[in-house]
Structures are given as structure tokens and as C-alpha cells.
């Protein structure tokens, strides 16, 4: 009986210490929010203690990767769970369980291993939110040559070829017509010389010679 009381007191102290370390709006803690139904829809799993254990293990892994020290699941304290599935967590130092790890160090660790933590839960940056740690933005890689210039080049090439083609055919056509007119003209001249005057002909200029009415009537 007498052994139990100190044990009880010890347990109380430990739990109250833990309670004091992890509290909502703790200075060195972060709020985590999971949106399972949004991310996974019908295939969403139920959030239970085992999932929480996985989270704490993942956080310990992240701290180990960043820090190098031997963090354990017991170093990650969780509190204020809500049905939303959101909670606060703090990380205690492996060397001194009443000392909290600095906020910035936790943030660094989370940033480094964000991908691994996300994939452990089949979630993304938007559905597993660490409030206060914005996800690093992925810059869209600009393509080597802007695609619009390529399309522009293709269109202009086609249009230029079209202009050259059409102008070329016009020039050729007009040259052909000029040649025809010239040869036709020469042939006409030879014909007229061969026929001489007085011969009935369709062309206008002969009319003046064959038109008797113009002779003065006596």
C-alpha cells in the first residue's frame, strides 16, 4: 500500500508534466490536420490509435534524419485530438524528456522528410497539413523554347510558302500572256501584209477602204 502511493504520485507527475508540455497553442508545438475523406474518398481508412502510433513513429523518423540523435516514439507527444482529425504535437529531446525541441528544428525536420511522411499516410501536402509549415512550391519548369514560337514558326512558314507560290504563278501567268500577245500580234501583222488592201477582212481598219459611202456623191 505504501509503495503504490509514490508510484501513483510519480505517474501523476509524469502525466501532468506531459500534459503541460503538449497543449493547444504550445509555443514549440505544431497543429496537424488530416483530411482523409477528401484525399481518399471511399478508400479512406479509419483514424485510430494505431494510425496515431504510425504518426508518432514517422515524426521520430523525421527528427532522427534531421538531427542524428536517437529519437523514439515516446519523444513525440500528442494531445487535443478532435473528430476533424486534427491534433497538436510536441517533440521532447531524447536526452531530457522534459525539454522540448525548438520549433525551428521541428519545422526543418518536417520539411526534409515531408514526402516520406505524406506517403506513409497516402496523403498529399494539402490533405496532411502542418499548420505553420507551408509546403515548398514546385516551380513550373519553363520549356527550353517557348512552344508558341514553334507554332508561330510553322504557321509563318506555311503562309510564306503560300505567298511565294501564288505570286510566282501570277508572274508566270502574266509572262505567258505577254508572250502570247506578242506572237499573236506578229502573226496578225504578217497576215495583214500578205492580204494587202481591198481584200475583205474582219478587222476594223480595212473598213475605211471598202466603205464606198464615204466617196463624195456626185
Amino acid at each position, binding site marked *: 500500500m505504501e509503495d503504490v502511493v509514490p508510484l501513483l504520485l510519480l505517474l501523476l507527475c509524469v502525466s501532468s508534466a506531459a500534459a503541460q508540455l503538449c497543449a493547444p497553442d504550445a509555443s514549440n508545438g505544431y497543429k496537424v490536420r488530416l*483530411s482523409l475523406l477528401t484525399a481518399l474518398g471511399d478508400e479512406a481508412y479509419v483514424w485510430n490509435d494505431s494510425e496515431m502510433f504510425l504518426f508518432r513513429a514517422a515524426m521520430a523518423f523525421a527528427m532522427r534524419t534531421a538531427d542524428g540523435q536517437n529519437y523514439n516514439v515516446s519523444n513525440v507527444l500528442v494531445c487535443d485530438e478532435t473528430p*476533424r482529425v486534427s491534433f497538436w504535437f510536441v517533440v521532447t529531446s531524447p536526452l531530457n524528456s522534459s525539454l522540448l525541441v525548438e520549433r525551428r528544428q521541428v519545422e526543418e525536420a518536417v520539411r526534409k522528410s515531408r514526402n516520406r511522411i505524406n506517403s506513409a499516410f497516402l496523403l498529399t501536402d494539402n490533405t496532411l497539413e502542418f499548420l505553420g509549415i507551408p509546403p515548398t512550391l514546385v516551380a513550373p519548369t519553363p520549356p527550353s523554347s517557348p512552344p*508558341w514560337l514553334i507554332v508561330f514558326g510553322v*504557321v509563318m512558314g506555311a503562309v510564306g510558302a503560300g505567298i511565294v507560290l501564288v505570286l510566282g504563278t501570277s508572274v508566270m501567268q502574266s509572262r505567258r500572256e505577254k508572250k502570247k500577245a506578242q506572237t499573236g500580234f506578229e502573226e496578225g501583222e504578217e497576215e495583214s501584209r500578205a492580204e494587202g488592201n481591198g481584200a475583205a477582212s474582219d478587222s476594223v*481598219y480595212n473598213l*475605211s477602204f471598202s466603205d464606198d459611202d464615204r466617196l463624195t456623191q456626185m
Partner: protein
Amino acid sequence: MKLKFPNPGLDDRIPSHAELERMEKEEAGDRPKWDNKTQYLLTCVGFCVGLGNVWRFPYLCQSHGGGAFMIPFLILLVLEGIPLLHLEFAIGQRLRKGSVGVWRSIHPCLTGVGIASLLVSFLVGMYYNTIMAWIMWYLFNSFQSPLPWSQCPLNANKTGLVEECARSTTVDYFWYRETLNTSTAIDESGGLQWWMVLSLVAAWTLLYVCCIRGIETTGKAVYITSTLPYVVLTIFLIRGLTLKGSIEGIKFLFIPDVDELMNPSTWLDAGAQVFYSFSLAFGGLISFSSYNSIHNNCEQDAILISIINGCTSVYSATVIYSIIGFRATEKFDDCTSDNIWKLMNAFNYPENNITDGNYDQVLSQFNQTNPDIIQGLQLQTCDMQTFLSQGVEGTGLAFIVFTEAIIKMPVSPIWAVLFFVMLFCLGLSTMFGNIEGVVVPLQDLNILPKSWPKEIITGLTCLISCACGLIFTQQSGNYWLALFDSFAGSIPLLVIGLCEMIAVMYIYGVDRFNKDIEFMIGHKPNLFWQVTWRVVSPLIMVVILIFYFVTQITKSLTYLVWDQEAVDFPTLEARPFPSWINVIIFILAGVPSLAVPVFALYKFIQNKCCKKEDYSDDTVDTISAKVEMNDKMKI
């Protein structure tokens, strides 16, 4: 109503019926001809059906009472559109000349009407092709996934999105910053934007290659440019109807509000829309009609093209609003789920506990218990009507609203390509008519040497228009374009249209005109045409002109500006024009309109003072003269 001004010498200036028959049989080779009737109809339909059918009519329809707007639209189509169209077709087919030639033949003092048409066609062509350049820019940028207007770029130190983009939307940013790179005022010109210059050059060279030999080449091009838009509209209709929320949009468009019919501005807007939609007074339709054979049934053509134009407007309005309905529904859903998310996170409710159904109930409950937290959340009001009425007119519709809808559809690049190809074809076929309205009068006016072939004249026109159009590629180019759109393409056209009617009815003579139509199509135009030509249509035009003039004069001249510093950003801010803009406005609207009376006066004075020296005009008709002429021919 048999008023007629004395018009001596009219018979000498125009070919008689006998001469027309002779010309028809001999097939004079120098005037171009249509290969077949289909080409002619497709060209006219292409000229009439343009961007206005897609982005002006749907907005007017929805804002003036939806389905009820059809009533003034159809009435004015029949009373104003069809008679004017028939008039232009008939006079072009009868006198077989372009716009300047036709009016000069009717009376030399009327040459001003043709010149006004030439100036208006030139000014409108300049800014219309800049819109084509914008369309081409978007088209070039549609060949990539994801589309460039679906993402905001990151800012300089990669910590977040660019501020301008984060405060407005990705499509706004792409349009105002990456396309236009717009400045904040019309006087801040900001220099030429090289990518816009390239797009402009592309638009003009493409137009040149299609117009290079006049209707010989455009006649082939219209087989595609006039038919493709209908195909694409149908594809979009099928796609649109399968999207969620499209029926909302169509309902919003067509639900009639009969009270709007009492509003005079509804009738005015309907009249103006009918007039501009038919591309009347540009001179292009007269030109196109003059290439027809003399006995072509222009009455039938006018009715057919009017019906097609009207139906296309209604059809495209349906398609546009089905897509707008989809976009509005998407935005509404995003807005409400955003609000639900915020509420859920603030009060740590499990997911899916707050749905659209109980949202209002939960919100009111929390408003009573924790009003301060609710305030801090900054919940937005999600109103479907607001989303449906956002930016649904003009360039805002095509480049902001529709592009936003496209990025929400699966396989976005294909829809983007289809949409911009459709807009491009709609605009290109209208530009064919514009170029015709500039090139043919230039040839008729004998300003350029006759030896220059058509290719060179067309090339020169395109080059000069492109050079002048460079003002629209500046940073303030968008504001200049809006200025041109409001003033160059509005009042002058109404003035020219009115002058055309008066010229044909009262200077050419309605009796002569009736006889001509009887000669051409076989029967005299019936009572409907007589009444509308002589009384109804001119009256409607006068009313619209007066009201337009009055509204333009009385309203304060402001323009909408994209300014990050503005209070209501991203809403556009209205800013007054600087005072020197009045000079520009006068040049745009005044010079073409005043060309009519100025030229009339000039010719009148010329006639009066040069009346005595009329001998040189008479030709000496003797055989000796013929001999001399023929000797020259021999050599």
C-alpha cells in the same frame, strides 16, 4: 412618297439594261466572277457572321430580358436588316461596281459616301485584325499542356505566387499581364510588345495570302473559314450539354423578362446589333454582289443570308451560355466547398459533416454562438447569378471567361485549340469583306496607277494597315482598341447606311430601282420592300442614329483600366480620358461621317466653276478619227 431629286446624266454614267445583257453574254474577262453560287453565299455569310455573333449578341440577349429579346431582334431584323441587305445586293448587282463606283455612278456628288465606306473599312479593319492577332496568340499558346493560363507563376524569391496573379485569377493575369502587358493609362504607351508585334504580323500575312487575288483566292478560303465555325459550335454544344450546370446557363439566357420590352434601350440595342451584325455600309457587300451574273436572284439571297445570320446568333448564344453555365456552377461549387472547409477547420467538425444541405443551418447556429470567429473566417457569399453575369461580353468573354471554363474541362488543350480556331475563322471571313471594302474603292478612285496588279495593291493595304496597327501592340493598346471600337465602328456606319438608303431611293429614284430589280430577277419588288425602303428603314436608322449620338455626347468619356493600385482590384476601374482624346475621337468618328458632305460640296463647286469647259468630253465620232486610231494600233 415619290420624292426624287433631279439627276441629269444618270443614264450616261450607268450601263443600260441592253448593255448589261450584252456584257453578260460576252463575259467581259477583266471583271472577276464567282466560280459558283455557293462561294458567293459562303463569302457573304462569312462577312456577316463574325465575332459579334459570338460575343455581343449573347450578352445583349441575356441582359435585355433573355428570350424576350428575340422579339425586338426579330422585328428589327425584318424591318431594318433585310431591306438594307437587299438594297446593297441589288444596287451592286445592277451597277456592277464597288462602293465608290456605285455612288459615283448614281451622282458624282455622292462619291463621299464611297470614300466614307473606304475610311471606315480601313479603320475597322485595322483594329479588327488586332483582335485576330490576340486570337492567334492564344491559339499558338494552346498547343501545350497544362495551358499557360491555368497556373500562376512564382514570384522572384520562389516563396509564393506573383502578387498580381494571386489577387486576381490566373486567366486575368495571363490576359492582362502576359498577353497585353497592359499599362495603367492610355497615355502611358509603354513601347511595343514584341510578341504582340509577331502575332500582328502573322495575322496580316495570313490575311494577305487569302486575299492576294481578291475573290479568286478568298472564294476558295471561305469553304473552310465559313463552315468550320458551325462545326466547332456543334462540337461545343454537345460537349457543353454533357457538362454539369450547362442547363443553368441556357435557362439564364432564355428565361424571358417581358418588362424589358418597355425599356427603349432594349429596342435601340437590338436595332444597333442588327445593323452592325449585317456588316452593312462597309462597301464589301456591294462589291461582292457586283461580281454576280445580272439575273442572280438578290432578293432570295438577302432573305437567306438574313435568316442564316439570325439563326447563327441564337445558336452561338446557346452554346456560349451552356459553357458559361458550366463555369458558373464550377465557381459556385468551389466557393461553397471553400466556405464549408473553412467552417469545418475552425470548429474541428469531422469531414462531410457539413454539406451543401445543412451549411446554412450550421452557419446560422455558429453565428449565434461564436460570431467573432465567423467574422474572422471571411466567408464569401456564393451567388450563382453573379457568376453567371460575370464578364460575358467582348474580349472578356473570349479571353477570360471562356478560357477559365476551358481549363476546367478535361483535355483542355483540344478545346482551347478548337475554340480559338473557330474565333479565328469567324474573324478572318469578316476581314475578307473589309479588305474588299478597302481595295476595290482604291482601284475605283484611280489613286494608284492602273498598271499595278491587284496583288500589289492588296499587299500595300495590308502593309499600311499592319504598320498603323502597331499602336495596338503597345502596352496601352487595349485602351486604344476599345476607343476605336466605340467610335470608328459606330456612328460613321449609321450615317453611311442612312445616306445609302436616301441615295438609292430618292437620288437614283425608286421607280428606276424597281424597274432594275424587275429586269434582274423577273418581278417587281412587292409592297413590303416599297414600304420598308421608302419609310420604315430610314426612319429606324434616323432614330438609332440620334439616340446613339445623344448617348455618346452626354455620357462622360471614361475607359476601364487594369490597375493594381486601384481600390476594387481585380475589378476594372473607370477612368476619364485625357482631353487630347477628343481630337482622336473626332478623327475616328467625324472624318468618315464628314467625308460625305465635304465631298458633295467639293464636287458641286467643281461642277459649277468648270461648267463652261465641257467640250473635251464629247468624242468626235468620224471615220477619220477611227483611221487615226487604227494606225496607232498597227504600230
